[in-house]
């Protein structure tokens, strides 16, 4: 009884933990999308507001074809958070396509990558110390012709080779650390010789209790 009271108290009177700032490496080239050829004349559905972080998750997962774990490291959030952002993005885009609404990309709890930029007109490199502000002009020559400069060439980019997940044996429940890049079903349980599965996924319903 007391625990229920405390939980209710917490949910009503305490503010939730603030959101972590999501890192945006590449802002979208346009500020939105408009439908054309409305077949139901007269009805204009409301616009859908796609947040920057949702756009970024779509870009990383569906355009760059990264998995959620890699994308979450790039956006500096946890893997479950990235999956939630991504699910929201897909839901909003599906809604816009079905209802024929306009998509406006704006808002969200984000900061723009504070790494390096380069100016095409004077050839200098500069960084952005103010995480919240977006850089539009070169600080030296005021030219707007700037590029987000990736100082690491693609082949030297560090690849993510770790994962916090755990493999579990469906038969005897033996657990071991999951090896990144190696499917759990290829792991053999050292206790009973069965193929293992990922802990915490829907497959774990197969586990004998």
């Amino acid at each position, binding site marked *: 009884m007391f625990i229920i009271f405390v939980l209710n108290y917490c949910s009503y009177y305490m503010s939730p933990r603030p959101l972590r700032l999501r890192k945006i490496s590449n802002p979208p080239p346009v500020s939105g999308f408009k439908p054309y050829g409305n077949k139901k004349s007269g009805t204009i559905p409301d616009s859908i507001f796609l947040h920057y972080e949702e756009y970024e998750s779509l870009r990383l997962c569906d355009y760059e074809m990264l998995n959620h774990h890699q994308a979450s490291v790039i956006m500096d959030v946890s893997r479950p958070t990235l999956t939630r952002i991504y699910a929201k993005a897909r839901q909003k885009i599906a809604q816009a396509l079905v209802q024929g609404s306009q998509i406006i990309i704006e808002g969200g709890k984000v900061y723009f990558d*504070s790494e390096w930029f380069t100016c095409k007109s004077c*050839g*200098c490199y500069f960084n952005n*110390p103010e995480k919240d502000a977006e850089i539009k002009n070169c*600080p*030296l*020559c005021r030219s707007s012709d700037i590029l987000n400069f990736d100082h690491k060439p693609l082949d030297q980019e560090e690849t993510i080779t770790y994962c916090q997940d755990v493999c579990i044996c469906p038969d005897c429940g033996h657990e071991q650390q999951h090896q990144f890049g190696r499917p759990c079903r290829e792991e053999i349980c050292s206790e009973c010789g069965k193929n293992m599965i990922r802990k915490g996924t829907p497959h774990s319903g197969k586990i004998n209790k």
Partner: protein
Amino acid sequence: MKVAITSTGNSPESKIDQRFGRCSYFAVYDTENKGIEFLPNPNKEVQEGAGPASVQLVASRNVQKIISGEFGIKIKSLLDSLKIQMIMIKEPEKTIQEIIDMLNK
């Protein structure tokens, strides 16, 4: 707003110094009253820690941007916490006057 430029000499005609921590002079340029102040760098000859010491010197003048050729490995996190912008120019032949002209454009 004040801008620090690393310089090889103490006149506007001298060239930009490609190093940050061990440059000869810092030219601190004030964009409001157009004044230039040349500070000799006391950390030019030190063995270690020239970068952080130079950051301290420059930050004491309340600069908001630092223009140099290259920054050492310890500098980025320091300047990030002080919210000072780093600008790198990879042209060793540019003079201080040319850079000031670019800033005034």
